[in-house]
């Protein structure tokens, strides 16, 4: 335990929470039985995939999902390197958990600046940062999630100048959707994966390959129109 989840779990009606790295390692969990961190992680994978797709549509911003069920609420916060899953009973105030997640996001951002790769064994949090699970209210005056710097800015791993900008990916999705239909985002994601990358690490030099591969997925009559539209809207 590292204390990162104390504030989230201190929110009234929160049953528990777990923090994972984006490759699925559990950094910390405070889940009550019968919820087991490994199982929650495996169940959450589809949710994370969906949130990642939404994230690309949003040009890289980090979304949070609130899923209301007859039993309560599941809240998932996606960040650059981590994701957090919280379970709450009915009566949870989404605003309070949002504030607690904002504080957690800021904490994780600070940790990312200290260490580019955070492993479970390397996590360390100054104890004075989160002394009590009861101090959630103290964060009410914190800036909202929107005010937190984009985690991409602090990512030490990627050379953004060589990567296709997220805005360009977003625009490509829009253009391709005109010809490829509502499943276009998934098709593009598959095609990016097929050439060995993911949508936030596609090198600019492979962008044309992606466009040509996408064109090949369309009916023949749409291909030249699609390519012309891309060249007009996405000169790279």
């Amino acid at each position: 335990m590292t204390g990162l989840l104390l504030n989230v779990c201190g929110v009234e009606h929160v049953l528990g929470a777990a923090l994972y790295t984006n490759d699925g390692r559990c950094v910390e969990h405070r889940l009550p039985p019968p919820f087991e961190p490994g199982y929650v992680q495996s169940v959450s994978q589809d949710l994370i995939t969906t949130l990642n797709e939404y994230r690309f549509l949003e040009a890289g911003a980090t979304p949070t999902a609130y899923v209301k069920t007859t039993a309560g609420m599941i809240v998932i916060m996606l960040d650059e390197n981590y994701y957090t899953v919280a379970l709450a009973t009915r009566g949870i105030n989404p605003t309070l958990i949002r504030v607690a997640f904002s504080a957690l996001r800021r904490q994780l951002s600070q940790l990312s600046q200290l260490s580019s790769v955070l492993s479970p064994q390397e996590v360390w949090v100054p104890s004075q940062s989160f002394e009590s699970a009861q101090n959630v209210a103290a964060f009410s005056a914190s800036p909202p999630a929107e005010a937190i710097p984009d985690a991409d800015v602090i990512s030490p791993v990627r050379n953004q100048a060589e990567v296709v900008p997220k805005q360009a990916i977003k625009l490509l999705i829009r253009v391709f959707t005109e010809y490829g239909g509502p499943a276009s985002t998934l098709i593009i994601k598959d095609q990016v994966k097929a050439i060995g990358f993911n949508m936030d690490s596609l090198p600019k030099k492979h962008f044309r390959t992606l466009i040509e591969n996408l064109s090949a997925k369309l009916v023949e009559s749409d291909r030249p129109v699609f390519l012309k539209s891309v060249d007009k809207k996405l000169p790279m």
Partner: protein
Amino acid sequence: MTASSDSEQKPALLPFASSTLRAMQKYSPEGSLLLTASFQGEVLEACGSGDRDGLAAVAAITSRSFSQAVDKLGFGRMNGWVISGETSCCLAEVHDQETTVGYSAEQPVDSLEMQHFLSRVGEDSGDKDEDQ
């Protein structure tokens, strides 16, 4: 599901979708708000501006994915969800396995709007015309 039962479902959904859009617009008067009501991924009704097929697809895919996760987790039955981003949001009410009403706005969802939505979904199924 036969074609005739599809057509029986559609008229019942439309008034609810329209009243829900009006309710949402009270909380997001400045935003570019889009509503789609979809049944088995097919758009039944859309209001506002934006990519209606895109939203219907996002709502349907997301609802299916979230619903499966909720079921596996044994955490009740899903009523709805919100994805809150920094520049936009996407919300959906899930009526059953195949019927989803989705909303999106080109602005982030604020706390009041989200709280209202989340407190409302699943709670007023017997009072669908309250906003009319």
